[in-house]
């Protein structure tokens, strides 16, 4: 193999699995160390810089970082990254001195944001301090978008959301709430320099099977129903409730139903339990609230008697996989199952919808009738109209919306300056030795064997009685410290400098996880079989040195490196060093 090019900023970035997996590339180990040092405010700001909504995301994030956590590869459970983020938000002090406050010197450019959800708010936060005049339009009475309408208060208290939305709106954003934009042309006709569409995926999918229309009074589309609950238009539901669907919206629906009078709430889902879209922890929380999840049940009809909904009929299926792994659900042949219900909530997915964009504006739409959006610049085919969040590429999650909005904000800034959108600013990276003394590092290199700590929850009796009482209590400071100590500091990189190496083998002998081998060079597939321990995880890179004096190369498998620093401690010539790698994604105005 060729020597690894560690000058490529993505090489060490990839070693920081959590940060790499995060769509917004939040510097996770950095803020976890700050939490361990009880610097909650600073930890909050590290998050805020990157993901804009630490308090919200610390409760509701889909956590792509956690399955990526290195800890999963050396023990069972990842670091509770998401809930540590919440710790930073819960325990922080006054953040006002860190957050830019307007008025900012105007740069004479005006940007319209359509929709007031996480994507639009992120664009607002990125652009307002640069002097842009921001006009935000939303049909709801308050900002937050789906974070407000679809995430129930028992998961995300309104106060947390209000605070973080407030940080942004206080930057001097011109908000126009309760104003539904029904025509893009009307916005284009105004003199905005750029327009950002962050309208989310607002249409809940319907289920047109027999009985749907007769029982319409008791059948609700999940996201619309959740929104009505959030704005207190609905405050009760029948005793027996069926929730259709297996995603996180279904979990929110069933748990909300339990709080509005639903006594026998059941989730029925077509797919097998293990393949449901909902996050495992959300399924657990639902089941903890006595909500059975019945998988492999396909809805057949709504059963209506004398104009009243009686329940639903389901067909039982089982999954069959073809040789390509594609799943089909095949009826088992068992008799249909009848489930009684007073109300049914349909949470089987949601879609983008752009009835308000005139098709004669010159904007190109694809074969699914979705606007064509560039995957890097987020620009539509009308140069000054940009998209981001669920509106750009369909429903994903908050953190993805934030990440896309950061990119869109960069594009809008470049566009307004008349610069090329394709010459994008680079990430800010840095590599700094952590050596403090002969055997001392400026990070906590000890590796704890503690198992993941469980976040305590409020008493179920209490939380089920009031939909506004938050279920999770969050870590206390001591537990947060212990959980933070589980972090392996993957951003402290093992940096190897071959001119200094005397090939004494000390690093090979000390490495607890057998990551390091000195051997004859070969191609990657061959090298992977010849290492001290087999390197079968192809998603993890090999760090390969240049040819050493004995004609061998040093090969380090990044897979299960604990970043304990022992290789560098046992290295007599400092050929190994532990260096903190900082990777900050570019921001608008950089």
């Amino acid at each position, binding site marked *: 193999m060729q020597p690894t090019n560690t000058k490529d900023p993505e090489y060490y970035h990839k070693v920081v699995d959590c940060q790499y997996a995060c769509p917004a590339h939040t510097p996770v180990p950095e803020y976890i160390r700050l939490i361990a040092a009880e610097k909650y405010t600073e930890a909050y700001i590290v998050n805020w810089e990157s993901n804009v909504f630490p308090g919200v995301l610390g409760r509701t994030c889909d956590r792509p970082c956690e399955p990526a956590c290195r800890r999963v590869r*050396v023990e069972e459970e990842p670091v509770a990254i998401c809930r540590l983020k919440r710790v930073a938000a819960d325990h922080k002090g006054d953040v006002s001195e860190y957050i830019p406050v307007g008025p900012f010197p105007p740069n004479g450019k005006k940007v319209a944001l359509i929709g007031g959800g996480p994507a639009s708010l992120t664009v607002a936060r990125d652009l307002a301090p640069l002097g842009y005049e921001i006009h935000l339009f939303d049909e709801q009475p308050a900002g937050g978008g789906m974070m407000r309408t679809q995430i129930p208060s028992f998961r995300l208290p309104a106060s947390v959301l209000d605070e973080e939305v407030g940080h942004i709106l206080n930057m001097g954003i011109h908000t126009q709430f309760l104003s539904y934009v029904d025509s893009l042309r009307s916005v284009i006709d105004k003199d905005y320099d750029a327009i950002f569409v962050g309208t989310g995926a607002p249409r809940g999918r319907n289920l047109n099977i027999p009985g749907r229309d007769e029982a319409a009074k008791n059948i609700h589309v999940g996201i619309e129903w959740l929104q009505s609950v959030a704005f207190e238009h609905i405050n009760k539901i029948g005793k027996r409730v069926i929730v259709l669907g297996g995603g996180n919206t279904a979990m929110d629906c069933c748990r909300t139903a339990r709080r509005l009078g639903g006594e026998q709430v059941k989730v029925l889902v077509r797919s097998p339990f293990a393949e449901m879209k909902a996050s495992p922890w959300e399924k657990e929380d639902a089941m903890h609230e006595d909500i059975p999840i019945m998988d492999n049940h396909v809805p057949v009809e709504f059963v209506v008697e004398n104009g009243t909904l009686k329940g639903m009929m389901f067909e039982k299926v089982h999954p069959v996989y073809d040789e390509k792994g594609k799943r089909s659900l095949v009826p088992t042949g068992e008799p249909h199952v009848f489930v009684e219900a007073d109300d049914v909530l349909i949470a089987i997915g949601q879609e983008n919808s752009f009835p308000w964009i005139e098709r004669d504006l010159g904007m190109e739409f694809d074969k699914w009738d979705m606007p064509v959006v560039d995957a890097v610049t987020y620009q539509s085919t009308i140069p000054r109209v940009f998209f981001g969040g669920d509106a750009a590429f369909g429903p994903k999650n908050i953190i993805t919306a934030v990440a896309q909005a950061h990119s869109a904000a960069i594009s809008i800034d470049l566009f307004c300056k008349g610069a090329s959108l394709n010459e994008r600013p680079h990430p800010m990276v840095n590599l700094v030795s952590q050596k403090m003394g002969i055997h001392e590092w400026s990070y906590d290199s*000890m590796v704890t064997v503690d198992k993941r700590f469980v976040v305590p929850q409020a008493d179920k009796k209490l939380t089920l009685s009031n939909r506004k009482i938050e279920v999770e209590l969050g870590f206390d400071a001591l537990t947060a410290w212990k959980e933070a100590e589980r972090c392996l500091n993957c951003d402290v990189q093992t940096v190897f400098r071959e001119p200094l190496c005397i090939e004494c083998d000390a690093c090979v002998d000390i490495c*607890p996880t057998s990551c390091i081998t000195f051997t004859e060079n070969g191609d990657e597939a061959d090298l992977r079989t010849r290492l001290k*321990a087999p390197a079968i995880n192809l998603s993890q890179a090999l760090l390969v040195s240049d040819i050493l004096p004995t004609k061998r190369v040093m090969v380090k498998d990044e897979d*299960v490196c604990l970043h304990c620093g022992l290789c560098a401690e046992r290295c*007599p010539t400092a050929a190994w060093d532990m260096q903190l790698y900082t990777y900050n994604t570019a921001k608008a105005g950089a």
Partner: protein
Amino acid sequence: MSYVRPKFRHPLLPTNDLGYTASDYEGSLSTLCAGCGHDSISAAIVQACFEMNIEPHKVAKLSGIGCSSKTPAYFLGQSHGFNTVHGRMPSVATGANLANRDLIYLGVSGDGDTASIGMGQFVHAVRRNLNMVYIVMNNGCYGLTKGQDSATADRGSKSKAGSVNPFESIDLCGLALELGATFVGQSFSGDKTQLIPLIKAAMNHIGFAFLNVISPCVTFNNNVGSTKSYDYVRQHMEATSTMDFVPMQTEITATYDAGTDAAITLHDGSLVHLHKLAEGWDPSNRMSAIQALQHARNDAKVLTGLIYYGATDTELHEVLNTSDRPLNSLKENELCPGKAKLEEINKGLR
């Protein structure tokens, strides 16, 4: 400094026939200097014992005093251990061995512990053909007392402070050959591909197996002008052969060239295969081995690999005709023949 090694290990570490991974043969974390050759030798011992499926409780590790003699704390944490007085490891090993012949005796010593204070003990253990492995971690200096020249420092070798050693060095391999050692090898801590099979063969040998392992002292003897530095040894190493250790049960799959290859059968049927034999060297001929050592010395080379192997069944227990069983397993009736037997003996002496 980190005194604790993290508990996590590679999830795919191979296991041996006993179900152990190499980490089960580790000891506590070394406190030797970073980069010390001794740590590599410890790691080679761990790997050799792992590969040979040795039950850790079947090994007794013994040492004297010195950097080298600290190492038994850093390998085979589940084995028996005895850290003796300076230079007195051979006599303790002799006592332990005579009391219990069922254990594998692994003596670890240094150049000071063997070639100076312990020389008297060492030579007698060799000539008695005590059944043990005797490893000298040889760095040519007194590392624990700031790096003075030891008795194995080569004449003309320069110390870190710049002084040149005016005295002739003791060649431990030559001495062991002279005294009738039946297994003599020399190796380098920085060459595990050679060292591990050598340790495995030595542990399989019955009789006195001697390994002199050059092990650079990174702190006091890794300077330019030293003949025990990483660079010097790498530049001057000359191998008698490359070798594979083939355990008894294993099918032999490698191919061997007649003329340049040789095979040695150990007492239990295991094989040591030697490839690319040095010219004019016969591993089973003591004269040829002594000559090879002398030639290397003349050429300022460090001869490594197996140097001499002589099959023997006359280790110390055979010579002394001792009990087949460990003394601690003998019951009173076996140890004390009784009054009648005493009468009989006495009668025979009248």
